[in-house]
């Protein structure tokens, strides 16, 4: 049964990560073009650091760092009179109450917590990429549009909400759809984070040290399992392509771009 649930895990990860990463991206991009210097520094640093470090390193280290960081903070609050050092050689020791999740929690709590950490890691990494795309998109909106809005007496906030944000998507979408495709293909890395996803099962099944399956009378069904996975990912990609091209067509409508102009001519 675990195998079938793992497909759901992947879809759930995609469904949660995409909007959260978009939110992170929007936050990062807005921060990077903020007028307040510390916000701007924060936004730029976020984009630069996460994009500069290889993502596999992020996936391997960030989860441990996050996990230990949370436990350390809980330890500070929950057991203030704990005197032993937290790091003892290779072990990370905190008091019982500070364990996250608690040692006596049910199995599903542990699994959900691990999944939550995975979602957070994915969101932070992909949020940085999304922030970069959206930062570029915000700058790509023709200056004249914003100046016109200012000339109408709109405040900076109004300009952002009424002119900048509705128009930036058409510039952001090619980058974001690219990112979405990468995100789909990054989901097999979920197993690195200790979540029982498709590849976890794949490795479980495929980890026979000396594969002698060809000696067996029955055919090796694992090939069909991976074939099905391949088709699953291809179908996901194809559906995304179709949907994204529709969204692109919708967003281009009435825009002052070459695409919008082509649509206008075709309609007229």
């Amino acid at each position, binding site marked *: 049964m675990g195998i079938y649930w793992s497909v759901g895990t992947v879809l759930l990860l995609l469904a949660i990560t995409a909007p959260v990463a978009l939110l992170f991206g929007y936050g990062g991009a807005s921060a990077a073009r903020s007028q307040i210097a510390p916000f701007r520094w924060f936004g730029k640093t976020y984009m630069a650091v996460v994009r500069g470090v290889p993502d596999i*390193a992020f996936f*391997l280290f960030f989860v441990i760092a996050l996990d230990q960081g949370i436990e350390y903070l809980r330890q500070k609050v929950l057991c203030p009179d704990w005197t032993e050092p937290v790091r003892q050689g290779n072990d990370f020791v905190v008091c019982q109450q500070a364990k996250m999740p608690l040692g006596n929690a049910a199995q599903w709590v542990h699994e959900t917590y691990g999944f939550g950490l995975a979602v957070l890691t994915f969101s932070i990494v992909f949020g940085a990429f999304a922030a970069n795309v959206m930062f570029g998109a915000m700058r790509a909106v023709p200056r004249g549009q914003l100046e016109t809005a200012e000339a109408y007496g709109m405040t900076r906030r109004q300009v952002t909400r009424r002119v900048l944000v509705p128009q930036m998507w058409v510039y952001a979408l090619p980058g974001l759809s690219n990112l979405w495709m990468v995100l789909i293909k990054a989901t097999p890395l979920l197993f690195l984070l200790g979540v029982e996803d498709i590849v976890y099962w794949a490795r479980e099944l495929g980890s026979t040290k000396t594969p002698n399956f060809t000696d067996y009378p029955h055919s*090796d069904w694992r090939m069909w399992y991976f074939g099905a996975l391949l088709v699953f990912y*291809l179908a996901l*990609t194809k559906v995304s392509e179709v949907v994204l091209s529709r969204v692109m067509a919708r967003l281009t409508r009435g825009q002052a771009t070459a695409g919008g102009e082509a649509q206008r001519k075709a309609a007229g």
Partner: protein
Amino acid sequence: MSCIQTIADYGLRSLGIGERLLPRSDFTLCQQFTLIGSGMIWNIYFGIFALAAGFVLATALALGKASRHTVLRKVSEWFIFIFRGSPLFIQFFFAYFLFLSLKSVAPVFGMFTSAWAGALVVLFFNTAAYSAEIFYGALLSIPKGDTEAADAYGLSGWSRFRRVIWPTMLRLAWPAYTNEAIFLFHATTLVYFSGFPALQQRGDALYYANYFADKTFNPFVPYPILAGYFIILTLIVITSFGLINARLNRHLPQEKRKRLRIRPQIIR
């Protein structure tokens, strides 16, 4: 044991030459450097051969995708879609079990169940598909004037392709193709993490780094060593591709040349 001795024992361990047993305790830095470096032989082997073969196939696929012949176009499009639309990880697993099954049909395929041939085939097809998409994009953006000039000189068929289309395509595609080469070298680390077994512990750099991380419970030494090796490899790739780029652009004035923009860090 001196470091020279360690290098003599383990320098070619990944090829099965030298000491048979891997170190089991008292790991020295020298051992880690030597073994992980020895594993790099495989990464370089996979990278170079897949790139070289993939380059030829990619050119053919790009021309096929741009051709007027429906059958050729459809075949190329599907090949590119299948290998670009699914995670490389799943492709490795699928290929491994596919070859295992085929082995029972024809013993010729026995060769492909080992990593040196099987994984190479997957990497070859994969990089061919990604590069073909890059070359196709470049093919479409060849300036109209160039082909018109070729026609005016009376060039046609093979000489037109060889003297005008192909060099221009390469020149336009080269910055993106450099990135693709870097991704490919990074992707070679996935080989022994997927289905392909490391016979007699002859693995690639990540295999040994993972071995040390598992034995010492300390990921903070072997992975940075691995990262260091890969940074050096990436720099070599960038330098050599930069030289080719300079040669492709040698007829252009300095400031019109396309700069190589290195954008690492995309998962496949």
